[in-house]
């Protein structure tokens, strides 16, 4: 559709006319109307070749065949090639059972040189009360296939299936299939920029709607949960890291309050931004001062959007722990003084009694002195006996 809109016809007029005819037909198809007359068949075939500087539509086949009372197979093949986006072939076949429902089947083969296909699915039952959510992290442009499976308790075919992006109802690009009592619906999104990100929901049923949600998000950045404590005059390194992703670019913002000022724009010595690997960024701040306190934000820029992390910085002055240290040291000194006083007090109490004994001891010494030489023998023996 877009290809058609962006078309600059270079071919002949006839292909242009065919184009117009087929465009009308196609538009009507996408609006949910399948033109099929019973008892008749409407083979429609279209080939179209267009070339565009960004986008080239190589070939394009639509065949709508409707069998009476039975089915409306619609087949479309489209091949597009583009430098950014290549969708090689694309076929829609819609088979409808008469009077009942319109199961639509779509087969799409995509070949891309630089896009990958990711598939995510949610399964729900009728009685699941909680809305089922799945978070999908996307870093690079890719094709995403979202599949919802639903097992109704009652009749499969009476269940209405819708898809929404945010609050907006999606009307194309999804298929519904029923096999073995389970309803499958699939929605394919080509995510190339941030506009395709968001939350996509599939809804089953009219009255009691079961809802499954896919949240397409850019990867999250891990800042630091605990505030970083630093001191005046020190330098600090703030780090933001992304687990398994490689952002295109990082920027830092410092904010006091709501004003966010980009850091590092006027390159100066105070702020140095560096990063060892692509998935992390480091902001080194030197000569810290009181003003540097606050929350710093690191923005990671991806192709598909932006993501940010927070780092909180607290700057203390040296006096803060020093005061606590002095308080504890003073308490220790008090304890020491108390113990010393206690010991002096107890010694004073003993001193009056000790004095007498010391006097005795002095006398004893003198005695020993004089008796030393004579008593050597007996003393020695006495010592020996004592020693045993």
């Amino acid at each position, binding site marked *: 559709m877009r290809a058609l809109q962006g078309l600059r016809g270079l071919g002949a007029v006839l292909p242009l006319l065919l184009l117009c005819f087929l465009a009308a037909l196609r538009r009507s198809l996408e609006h949910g109307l399948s033109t099929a007359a019973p008892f008749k068949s409407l083979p429609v075939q279209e080939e179209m070749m267009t070339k565009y500087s960004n986008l080239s539509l190589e070939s394009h086949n639509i065949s709508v065949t409707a069998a009476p009372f039975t089915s409306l197979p619609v087949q479309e093949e489209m091949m597009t090639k583009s430098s950014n986006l290549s969708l090689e072939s694309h076929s829609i076949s819609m088979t409808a059972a008469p009077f009942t429902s319109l199961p639509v089947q779509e087969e799409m083969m995509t070949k891309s040189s630089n896009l990958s296909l990711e598939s995510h699915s949610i399964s729900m039952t009728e009685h699941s009360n909680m809305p089922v959510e799945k978070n999908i992290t996307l870093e690079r442009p890719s094709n995403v296939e979202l599949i919802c499976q639903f097992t109704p308790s009652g009749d499969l075919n009476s269940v209405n299936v819708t898809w929404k992006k945010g609050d907006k109802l999606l009307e194309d690009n999804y298929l519904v299939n029923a096999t073995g009592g389970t309803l499958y619906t699939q929605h394919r999104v080509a995510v190339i920029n941030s506009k395709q990100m968001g939350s996509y929901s599939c809804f089953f049923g009219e009255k009691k709607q079961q809802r499954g949600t896919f949240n397409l998000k850019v990867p999250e950045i891990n800042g630091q949960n605990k505030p970083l404590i*630093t001191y005046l005059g020190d330098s600090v390194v703030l780090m933001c890291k992304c687990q398994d992703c490689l952002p295109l670019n990082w920027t830092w913002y410092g904010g006091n309050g709501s004003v966010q000022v980009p850091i590092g724009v006027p390159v100066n010595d105070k702020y140095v931004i560096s990063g060892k690997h692509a998935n992390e960024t480091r902001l080194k701040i030197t000569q810290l001062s009181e003003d540097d306190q606050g929350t710093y934000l690191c923005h990671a820029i991806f192709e598909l959007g932006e993501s940010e992390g927070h780092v909180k910085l607290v700057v203390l002055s040296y006096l803060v722990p020093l005061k606590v240290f002095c308080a504890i040291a003073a308490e*220790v000194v008090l*304890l020491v003084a108390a113990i010393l006083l206690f010991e002096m007090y107890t010694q004073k109490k003993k001193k009056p009694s*000790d004095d007498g004994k010391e006097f005795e001891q002095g006398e004893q010494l003198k005695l*020993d*002195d004089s008796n030393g030489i004579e008593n050597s023998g007996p003393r020695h023996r006495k*010592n020996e006996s004592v020693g045993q």
Partner: protein
Amino acid sequence: MLKRKVQPYKKTLDGGWGWMVIFHFFLVNVFVMGMTKTFAIFFVVFQEEFEGTSEQTGWIGSIMSSLRFFAGPLVAVICDITGEKTASSLGAFLVAGGYLISSWATSIPFLCVTMGFLPGLGSAFLYQVAAVVTTKYFKKRLALSTAIARSGMGLTFLLAPFTKVLIDLYDWTGALVLLGAIILHLVPSSMLLRPIHIKSTSDSDIKDESSLSPTGPEAACGTETSCCNEIQELAIGDSIMQKEQRPGLSLTVSQNQSKEFNNEYNRNGLFRKTNEETYWKKTTSRSCKQKLFDFSLFKNPFFYIFTWSFVLSQLAYFIPTFHLVARAKTLGINIMDASYLVSVAGIIETVSQIISGWVADQNWIKKYHYHKSYLILCGITNLLAPLATTFPLLMTYTISFAVFSGGYLALILPVLVDLSGNSTVQSFLGLASFFAGMAVLSGPPLAGWLYDYTQTYTGSYYFSGTCYLLSSVSLFFIPLAERWKTV
């Protein structure tokens, strides 16, 4: 008899002021063990801050814990020179100073000195002095009192969250400063280590600073450093002028030591004019100091027995505790349950220490028999450890290991006192610790290497079990050594 300023006691106190000493020992256990445990938190911080490898940063912790043992002989020497109170306060200042200076650290080698060397040295001072003074104050209830003091290790689990809070509030520099201030509290508590003089039944007054003979062996100076005891006894007991006594001593002294006695005699002669106690203290201690470097302990078979057992049990002890959480993880047990295991082990070990201490103090059989049996049981438990593959079995292993290890840990000091006999507990413990330091230093790398080599933790358990069994082997030789000694 000369009286000192402090009243001499007829026998060991076994209580009274001894409980204050136990309180100090308790605090020392809390802080010294706490230092090792909180280091694990600082390890992460330092590694981030200074961007060192985990091997480099791990050296800080290794130096800190191994120096606690290596500095044993040095502590004994300094304790002789300055006295216990001063040595302990010096230790506290070293630790606190080390922490304070570390807050200005700029690199890992800087930290190796200020946070490894200084606190390690300080904790050696603190621990050894406290242990020795405990042995002086307690004889009958030594095992129980040591066990009560060692229960301080159980409180260290509080220090880890506290350190984390400090780091969150003040960053690691502020946290180090505040931890240093808290450790300064060990200074007033070291002042509780009052010197005590025990007048044992068979000896005369013994100087407290450098010698102890609680079991009261013969005062014969023939084999040990108890020459110190003799000299001091005589010097003090006979007051000053009895140099003529000394030649008499040579009768009881073996020939090779008479020269030393002559030296001491001369020195004592020089100082005999002064009546100052302190001078006597210094001379006798200086002469005793010569003894400490004399390696006369190496002639003591008990020293070998005890050191062998001590070194191997130290080597074997921490490997199971080190690897418990890791092993639980490999068996698929989640972190919460694993930490539950660790805390259960801690509590049971503390309780088991106290019970074992009490049982040993009842003196139904000699203490080293208990020590032997606990070591053997520890060894068997560790050898059976690889069979524990589920959480209940692992819990059983943890509980039994905690019970038996608590049992033997409480008895290390009493057995040492029993075996040291004539020599000073200080020097015995110092030298034994020196050798144990080698085990502590080589332990973590050995455990790591075992794991890398075998890729399971079962190898370390087998190793630990065999070490325990080997360590108990030497204790079987005690009766033999006793007979050899009396011969």
